[in-house]
């Protein structure tokens, strides 16, 4: 479908390219609101933080907040997108340093736990939301979240290509199961206060168990 233009969504970038004073001020306001929202979501959870509190924390009126964001879920989504994009980068860095499929997958797990170590309350809020019917679906559909899952699939496919895993490795299913374990371990991080080392050791074992049936020979 060549005639379909791929650069429809240029509004955001256009603002960056032509930074009028007004646009800059708007960006600063948005950044201030987002920082305040991030603090409050971390302190009181998603339900506990109101737009009114967030506005007060940012030192502006609720009207000013609503001029920039449609609602609370919009704010949370923006924060998640920023974090998930940074997380995808951190995971790609980890992958680049991995050797072999087990090690590379482990790097993916650990990159995630290291990234969230300093922001576990936010992870907790995100997990709570992810189980709500509509908002959960929205979170899952975010582009960087999709990429996150694909990183696991990619590494499994490479493992098959390199001959570390058998051709019948059921990559899609294994990828889902690894992702389930990756998510489930956040419970230990959030509620058990587990160290990065403990999370890493557990992940390593889980990866071994999930790949066990896919070894060659």
């Amino acid at each position: 479908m060549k005639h379909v233009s791929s650069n429809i969504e240029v509004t955001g970038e256009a603002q960056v390219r032509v930074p009028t004073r007004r646009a800059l001020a708007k960006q600063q306001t948005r950044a201030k609101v987002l920082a305040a929202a991030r603090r409050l979501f971390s302190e009181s959870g998603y339900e506990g933080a109101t737009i009114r509190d967030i506005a007060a924390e940012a030192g502006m009126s609720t009207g000013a907040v609503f001029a920039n964001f449609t609602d609370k879920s919009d704010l949370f989504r923006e924060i998640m997108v920023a974090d998930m994009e940074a997380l995808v980068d951190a995971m790609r860095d980890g992958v680049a340093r991995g050797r072999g499929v087990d090690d590379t997958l482990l790097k993916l797990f650990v990159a995630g736990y290291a990234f969230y170590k300093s922001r576990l309350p936010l992870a907790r809020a995100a997990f709570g939301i992810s189980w709500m019917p509509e908002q959960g679906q929205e979170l899952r559909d975010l582009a960087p979240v999709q990429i996150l899952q694909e990183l696991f699939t990619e590494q499994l496919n490479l493992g098959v290509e390199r001959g570390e895993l058998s051709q019948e490795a059921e990559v899609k299913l294994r990828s889902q199961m690894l992702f389930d374990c990756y998510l489930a371990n956040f419970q230990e991080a959030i509620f058990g206060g587990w160290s990065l080392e403990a999370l890493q050791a557990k992940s390593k074992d889980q990866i071994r168990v999930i790949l066990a049936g896919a070894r060659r020979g």
Partner: protein
Amino acid sequence: MSVRKSQKEATRQRVLDAARELFETKGFDATTVREIASMAAVSVGSVFTTFSSKSDILSQVMADRLDALYAELDRLVPHLRGSTPDRLRSIFAIHYAFETRRTRLFLAHIAAAYNWTLTPSSRPYGRNQRLRLVIRDCLTEGVTRGDVDPATDLEIVVDALMASYAWTYRLAAWEDADAETMSKVMDRHIGLIASGFRPPTPANQ
């Protein structure tokens, strides 16, 4: 039991029944304690003499339901036949079938595990050790019967199974999947994990 005590127990039960109904039909977030009290025909004040918060009520509703589930499971498990993977499939299928009788209630229970107002007495989703024990027993028996490799790290297998079980619920949360659909997905996860803990035989070495 004194009259006073049995009255208190009756109130508690009425509140729990009303809450279970409302959480399932209206959803947890949309339900207020006032509505629960009104449906149970008790005062808001007497709800709060028994429960500390709405989350606490949910936690108690779920605790009672899970007691029923595990009583059912304790009866059924000794009658399970077949290979270890097949037994595991049955155990998880029983869970999905039971929990999807009231899907919204159960999803509220999962979401509440991350709730900020969690009370120390609440037993949120995922920190219930009973299923872990049932699964572990099933695997241990498998080692005895000879279809689970004794070299297997059972705790890790339990972990992986629990992760799959818990997150397969995303299908119910986001795609309205029923128990049968989730059990089918879980069956495949179990098969895959089982391919890793099968004892080595001369035939497949």
